[in-house]
């Protein structure tokens, strides 16, 4: 029997959907090995996050609320999460492989003497954790041989879990982060302001590459507007300053698997494919028909993006009335 503790991801007091993708993994794990799952909500003034999780069948929702936890300082969060796991007897700690999860969970693993599997995409029949390696060119099935286990979950590989009703109890956990975080000071956060859906949650993603140059926004935004899409970018478009770092999709950026993905003026390097090749439908628009992006695209259009994307935008707009 296992007890799985799920680190909830939130942003300024609002639950993030990747938590529910992680829950889907936790449910699979519990279905296979038996046991139950709890949530950990770590932060400051995060009561709303706990309430939002009450209908999802957890044994309990533990809230570690402390002013020193307001920012996800890895040493502090990692300690509190490990303390909580110990106090409730959790043998598995899991969370999304977001930048917060990647930062925090390894520290928790050390404190629990646990092995950690990163960014897993499936639980195999034999109970191994499948995870992409070599930019997703190979999948490694890994086993963790320690009694305690820490697992970060690639959200795009698991459909968000549904609510099951009921009302899980909320329990306060007396968190003691002070010492662990004392040599780190939060200075500032420079956030990307956007009214668009989150890249990780969007059903449609419009991604642009270096070929769009300083027209990156002028080309991608109108199309994203008509499709209520999130905007993504290749690393080259970010490196050249046409898009913010938060937009980067790929091996070292975000991994997405929307219903519909537009790759516009993106060549399709392995590192980019690693972040989008599990999208349901891929459309490639590129003026060079020999680019590798066409090897993964369901629909390819060999054309100048500056000419065809505005036309595509207006045709879709017309369709939608």
């Amino acid at each position, binding site marked *: 029997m296992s007890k799985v503790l799920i680190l909830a991801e939130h942003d300024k007091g609002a639950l993030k959907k990747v938590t529910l993708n992680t829950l889907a993994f936790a449910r699979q794990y519990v279905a296979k090995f038996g046991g139950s799952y709890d949530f950990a909500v770590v932060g400051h003034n995060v009561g709303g996050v706990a309430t939002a999780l009450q209908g999802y069948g957890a044994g309990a929702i533990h809230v570690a609320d402390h002013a020193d936890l307001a920012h996800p300082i890895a040493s502090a969060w990692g300690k509190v999460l490990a303390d909580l796991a110990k106090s409730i007897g959790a043998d598995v700690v899991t969370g999304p492989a977001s930048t917060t999860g990647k930062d925090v969970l390894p520290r928790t693993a050390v404190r629990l003497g646990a092995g950690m599997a*990163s960014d897993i995409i499936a639980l195999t029949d034999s109970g191994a954790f499948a995870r992409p*390696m070599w*930019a997703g060119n190979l999948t490694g099935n890994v086993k963790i041989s320690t009694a305690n286990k820490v697992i970060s979950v690639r959200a795009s590989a698991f459909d968000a879990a549904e609510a099951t009703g009921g009302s899980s109890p909320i329990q306060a956990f007396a968190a003691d982060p002070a010492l662990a975080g004392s040599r780190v000071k939060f200075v500032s956060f420079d956030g990307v302001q956007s009214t668009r859906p989150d890249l990780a949650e969007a059903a449609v993603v419009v991604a642009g590459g270096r070929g769009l140059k300083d027209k990156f926004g002028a080309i991608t935004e109108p199309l994203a507007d008509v499709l209520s899409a999130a905007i993504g970018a290749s690393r080259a478009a970010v490196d050249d300053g046409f898009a913010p770092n938060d937009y980067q999709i790929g091996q070292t950026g975000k991994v997405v698997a929307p219903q519909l993905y537009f790759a516009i003026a993106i060549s399709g390097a392995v590192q980019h494919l690693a972040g989008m090749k599990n999208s349901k439908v891929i459309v490639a628009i590129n003026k060079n028909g020999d680019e590798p992006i066409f090897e993964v695209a369901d629909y390819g259009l060999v054309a100048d993006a500056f000419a065809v994307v505005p036309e595509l935008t207006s045709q879709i707009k017309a369709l939608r009335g």
Partner: protein
Amino acid sequence: MKILVSAKRVSDPNAKLAIAKDGKWIEGEVEYILNPFCENAIEAALQIAEANDGTETVAIGIGDDETARFIRQGALARGIDRGILVSAEEETIDSDLIARIYAGVVHRENPDIVLLGKQAIDGDSNQVGQLLAEYLGWPQATFASKIEVSDGKAVVTREVDGGLETLEVTLPAVITADLRLNEPRFASLAGIMKAKKKPFDELEIDDLDLENTETKVQVVGLVTPSGRKAGVLVKDVEELVQKLRSEARAI
């Protein structure tokens, strides 16, 4: 000040990978390169050293004899002062053991900063820096795109979901490099010549007083994921819209 920086070799990202017979790693004629993130870490170490007189820089690689070449050519030839190779049977290491080996070296060397890559492009685990920081009880600043060191502190800008976060960490600390941190320099011919004469230590894991050398995570099998098939080319926007609507039902 002293900076310990990583030099890990990885297979060329564009190489066709063959799975070894035991199914646990890759084999065959693969080209190797220095892990790109280690290149950024090395460049950052050199820049910090250039800005802070009297800073010593030490590169460390864990692996077989081949790894030594990457420490020399990738790190020492660019200007890192000395190298350390920790010999390890590569089949027997996981991220956790790598982190414990680093911790063992840190206890011998007492650096102020350990600079690693945010991930290795073969294992893609993104763990070693964080594990090491916890083993040492040090603060960490991962995914760095900017580092400023002064007065025993580092102010680090980090690439995170949603934007850029800036942290101030009190040294000693672990910092992991993201790709936009800097443009790695090339080794000069003079640098390559000098590298041959720079101090180079070879250590065995046994020299490091680790509690044990057991791994916590094992690769039990590598598989090739099922690929995507190329679809169709459409002739114009109209056909694309029509296909997306009636065939894919995506708009």
